[in-house]
């Protein structure tokens, strides 16, 4: 195991970057950006993982009876998810406008300026 979970996060991030660079469709590109972002979830949760530990919620676990995983990175992941969702929504709204104005969602076809 060792370093594998971190490497998985790196792999997901690079796959997302590859998709962004080669995308021929803006909606596809927004999806690739979400893939890049999910790499950060994997990285954060991997950093916070602790062997034989449970969730840091003490409604049914007696405090101190079991080790818990790192709650700080879980809270950061939650922030990440919310920001990711809002960025995706905003980008998709932009794609709707681009498609209306230019009649295409291919980034390569969007080279000329139009008023």
């Amino acid at each position: 195991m060792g370093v594998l979970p971190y490497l998985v996060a790196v792999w997901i991030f690079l796959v997302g970057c590859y998709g962004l660079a080669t995308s021929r469709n803006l909606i596809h590109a927004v999806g690739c950006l979400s893939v890049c972002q999910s790499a950060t979830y994997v990285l954060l949760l991997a950093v916070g993982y602790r062997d034989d530990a449970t969730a840091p919620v003490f409604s049914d676990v007696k405090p101190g009876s079991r080790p818990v995983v790192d709650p700080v990175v879980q809270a950061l992941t939650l922030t990440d998810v919310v920001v990711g969702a809002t960025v995706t929504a905003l980008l998709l709204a932009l794609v709707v406008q681009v498609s209306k104005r230019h009649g295409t969602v291919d980034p390569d076809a969007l080279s000329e300026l139009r008023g």
Partner: protein
Amino acid sequence: MSRRARLWLVAVGGGALAALLVAACLDLPAFGGTRHPYGDRAVRESLARHTANTIASINFDQRAFDTLGEISILFAAVLGCVVLLRQTRDEHRARPEPEPVALPVRRYALAVLPVALLTGLYVVAHGQLSPGGGFQGGVVAATSLHLLYLGADYRALERIRPVGLYEVGDALAVSAYLVTGLAGLIGGTAFLANTLLPYGTFNTLSSGGTVPLLNAAVGMEVACAVVVLLARFLDQAVEIEKGK
């Protein structure tokens, strides 16, 4: 730049980035290790303030100021979407015709709608006790309303979803978060400090001081924001059409 040149650039840049990231990964603390200094301190603080869900304690107490920034991003993004997706001069609204819905889909959607709505509200209300909280519960509650669009039709959804009201609710929820934070200043402590209310009995609904209040404000904000966002995108897909 030609596609070929761009691919070469991506390969070179991506390879270098991959090497740097792998080198960084090899230096990270071992996976599953026992040393989590911030986590241990966060758990101790959360228990000291009688909040069973440590993540809610971090979001709405220890890092409440960061959460204010987070919901401001959400608010700004909704505002941006509303501006970007509004009806322009050369477009008009077409009345969508109801399509027949398969009977099992209709029955299932209408049966699940109240259950899903209640689940969403439950998750918001128990944010300081069990996994979940304002962000997750708000999304569940907001999406449950849209089961009506699947089960009945767009008109039915519009009747239970006056978008203007939800926009007001969105703004009110952000204001409620700010006001709860300012209440700390009036009480003689810092902005968003959790010292105003009694911490209550551990593992009950009223525990955690201001955590449940901030959690509820965020739940309302997220629910309203998701409803408004989906309404704007659905408008574009269903109602707004090009040409006069």
